[in-house]
């Protein structure tokens, strides 16, 4: 019997992933929450898993003790995986006894921790149900008692006299020599900073037998435990190895939680948009988390709304986005894309509220800085655009940034219009950031980054719906260098805010 997962109700093995890792990086998620969680974010969650994961994240928000329990459980699960691997590769009977004892104690600790988690949502409910079935058995209760009674060898110091044979082994109860070096350095005025875990060496199998001879009674107890319970835990009833992937799953939950805590701590809102049966993407005050990463405060970031929908007479699913340089176009694109990825993984979303349908694929198309081999940049852009076009449909999200900027304006406009119209007509959701103003004004609706012309083309970072746009508002020299009286005053205000 296998233990259940904390992230998936159904095996993700046969699913088409939500997004490529490169797309997640385009959206800024590779920087924060970071590369470590991208493999899970790339898979996504299905319609049943989204609320089940939301339940876990809300539990972690409300109950810090649950996060501590999960952290400790992840450490146990990682240790258990390591011990089971070592057990499979050890031939010495005494070695197997020792490893089984340590694995058994770790498994009991892990199961005990998971049992204390409150039941919230389908994923935690499934886990609790499985654990209850296990811990109710009589053999497990006896096993737990026996494992608790046997003292472990972990942390014990020994000395070996070498190289003459027979090699002498003794237990050592004094201050370990390594620690003594540290103590001497400290007495000489040094500060001891913990370093990486020191390397360890596996000794010949006979070592375990000798270790058991040092304390024969202890060795016998470990042996009896393995003889009696290994068939239950390694082979038949409850395969402990199926419990170990939980370490990576918990790591995902905790890394995401730390990221959300940082956002909340800096005064940014997070919320769980409703899972909508309609084809829509509606968000209020959504913001770009990569700006937070760059050190901007809640007061400095201008949030925007998103109102994308399809059906019921609306065809507002895909938009061009144009406007002034530095006006917030890419930030808006990133904000929407990252919000969608987080929502489709059951995470809280950086916005104040909203509702979203369930999408199954997400694509990005950003300027590629890599080599184009022999195809040229425009050809590379066309190839990547074709993949998106081929998958386009009502369950697709597409976020395109300066796509086809590797060609002259006429070719770029032609290819861009064709791609945008295909996506818009297919029912795909998303935005296409472009500087080519002639693309606006057609069937595909447009958004624009607003500047305040009455105030020296000041960037407002507001995104609004427009019919068409016709200027990039080049700034004059004084504005560029920020030396006007007003700009200097603004600089001081910013400084005071810092």
């Amino acid at each position: 019997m296998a233990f259940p997962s904390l992230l998936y109700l159904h095996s993700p093995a046969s699913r088409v992933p939500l997004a490529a890792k490169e797309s997640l990086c385009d959206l800024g998620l590779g920087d924060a929450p970071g590369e470590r969680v991208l493999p899970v974010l790339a898979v996504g969650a299905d319609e049943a898993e989204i609320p089940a994961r939301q339940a876990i994240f809300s539990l972690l928000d409300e109950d810090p003790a649950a996060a501590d329990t999960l952290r400790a459980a992840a450490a146990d699960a990682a240790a258990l995986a390591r011990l089971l691997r070592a057990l499979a590769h050890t031939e010495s009977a005494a070695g197997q006894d020792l490893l089984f004892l340590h694995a058994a104690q770790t498994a009991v600790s892990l199961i005990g921790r998971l049992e204390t988690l409150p039941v919230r949502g389908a994923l935690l409910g499934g886990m609790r149900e499985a654990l209850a079935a296990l811990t109710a058995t009589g053999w497990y209760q006896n096993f737990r008692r026996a494992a608790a009674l046997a003292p472990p060898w972990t942390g014990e110091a020994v000395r070996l006299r070498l190289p003459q044979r027979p090699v002498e082994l003794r237990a050592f109860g004094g201050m370990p020599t390594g620690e003594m070096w540290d103590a001497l350095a400290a007495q000489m005025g040094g500060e001891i900073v913990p370093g990486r875990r020191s390397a360890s060496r596996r000794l010949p199998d006979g070592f375990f037998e000798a270790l058991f001879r040092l304390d024969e009674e202890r060795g016998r107890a470990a042996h009896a435990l393995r003889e009696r319970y290994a068939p239950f835990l390694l082979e038949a009833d409850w395969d402990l190895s199926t419990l170990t992937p939980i370490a990576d799953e918990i790591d995902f939950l905790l890394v995401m939680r730390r990221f959300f805590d940082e956002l909340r701590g800096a005064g940014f809102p997070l919320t769980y948009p409703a899972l909508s049966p309609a084809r829509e993407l509606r968000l209020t005050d959504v913001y770009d988390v990569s700006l937070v990463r760059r050190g901007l405060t809640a007061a400095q970031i201008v949030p925007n709304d998103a109102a994308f929908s399809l059906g019921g007479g609306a065809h507002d699913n895909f938009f061009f986005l144009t406007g002034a340089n530095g006006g917030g176009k890419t930030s808006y694109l990133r904000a929407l894309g990252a919000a969608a990825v987080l929502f489709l993984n059951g995470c809280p979303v950086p916005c104040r509220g909203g509702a979203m349908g369930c999408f199954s694929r997400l694509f990005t198309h950003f300027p590629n800085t890599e080599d184009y081999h022999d195809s040229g940049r425009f050809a590379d852009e066309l190839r990547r655009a074709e993949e998106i076009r081929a998958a386009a449909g009502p369950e697709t999200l597409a976020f395109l940034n300066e796509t086809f900027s590797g060609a002259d304006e006429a070719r770029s406009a032609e290819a861009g219009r064709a791609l945008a119209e295909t996506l818009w007509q297919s029912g795909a959701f998303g935005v296409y950031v472009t500087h080519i103003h002639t693309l606006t004004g057609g069937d595909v609706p447009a958004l624009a980054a607003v500047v305040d012309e009455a105030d020296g083309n000041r960037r407002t970072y507001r995104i609004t719906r427009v019919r068409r746009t016709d200027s990039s508002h080049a700034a004059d020299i004084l504005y560029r260098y920020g030396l006007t009286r007003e700009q200097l005053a603004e600089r001081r205000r910013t400084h005071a805010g810092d």
Partner: protein
Amino acid sequence: MPEIKFPKCTLLGGGERGRIGKTAADDLLILRLIRHLPAETPALRVFLDTVSAPPLSPEAVVARQETLRVFLTHPSLLDGLEEVSARLAQIRQNWDSERAKFFTVRRLSSGDKTTEFYNARLSLQLTARYLKLTLMTLDAVRQLIDRYHFEAPALSALRDACARATTGAAYRRVWETADRVELGILEATSYEVEGTLDDEGRLTAPILADFRFVPASPPRRGGEGGLFSALFRTRSEARADAPPPATEAAYLNEFPSEASYDLLLDAAGETERRMLSLARALLASMESIPRELSFYRVAFLYCRRMADRGVAMVFPEILPEAAHVAEARALRDPILLSEAARPESVVASDLDLSGGGMLIRGPNGSGKTVFLRAASLGVLFGLSGLPVPAASARFSIRRGIFTHFAAAEAALSEASAAGRFEEEVAALAAVLDELTPSSLLLLNETFQSTSYPEGAAGIAPVLEHILALGGNFLFVTHLTELFTLYRDTPGIILCSSSGEAADRYRIRPLGGAAKNI
């Protein structure tokens, strides 16, 4: 393995440092001032770097003043410290080169495990010697400083740090262990390897706990203690001690020789790493001293040169950042003092930036730029712990000292004039990006590359921005509109240099009608 860190010894003081603008050192001709001093180029570079980052705490500046005073009173202490610190650098260099040679030999030798272990012991022996030399040199620093009587906290702290590392029971134990390894590790035939079991039953961080030469004999039973403790007992201690408690031992007949030597190699390596990290940490704590002594050497030579030329110098009073003070009475330009045939002929002027800013105008060649330089070098050197050529001086801490000299000397064609103004704007904008409260900005003929009314209108908001930020400026300019604009502005002192022979090169505040151009 844990990392060892000893507090960094410093003669310049730690903590946050201020900074000067990218062009300030060139604009202020610092290199011209020091390049004739009989010091090596690297030392001059260190001096330049050091004055480019003055401390942000008054205590640190005063500590530098006190250290420099001690060196001026006891030049032999500076000589001695330079000699010992050169020895410290040499130890590291020699060790690196010996290790490099050793590794070459080790790579070339065909290695069975016993040869490899012999080489590991040779390496361990080398490292033990390195540790001993390091300890000896630190002891030499302590003994040298102990010969002098003074009150300078940085030098006392250096002596105390060396004393902590080279006196006491821990030092003796480390010394004796290193000594024992150096003398005995190659002859040893039996080794005790100690380690802690991890949860997989592996031996973590195996280390040498003891070694000895044992003629063929049965294994010894018992024996407790750490770090070769049994080896360091004197005979009387050994007699006083009860016999070590007998511990049950188990014996492994099936322990392949290769496994034994692998373990011994691990243990020798760990022991060497322990010694090495201790020696390196001790040396690292001293690593900035040679460089800092270079600063004091150049400062010493600068003071000597001024004294030889009969120039009176004064250590300024240093005030906290919040005081916003920059005052000096009878301040003179150190470059002219250093180069003039008759230093006593160099004219002195008073500096007063405490209110906010000084605007200086006057005919060409009447000493405006010289005063700007004298004031800048005075503040910069004073805040770096050096004396200044003035009758008295009081400076508060500055987070930044920036210059914007409009390259008035550069010949520019008319065709490039439009671009020149933009360059000036860009350069000034870059300076403002760096500006912090309590910065000092020194401007020389800024924005004169456009029409003067436009230049004045452009620079005025910048000057007000500096004052609003809590900074100060000293601005030498021909933009006379500014003198009208700021005629009655509190905090801005309007000054003029005179072209008249009787008062030439002196900067004086304007009063009454003279303020109005």
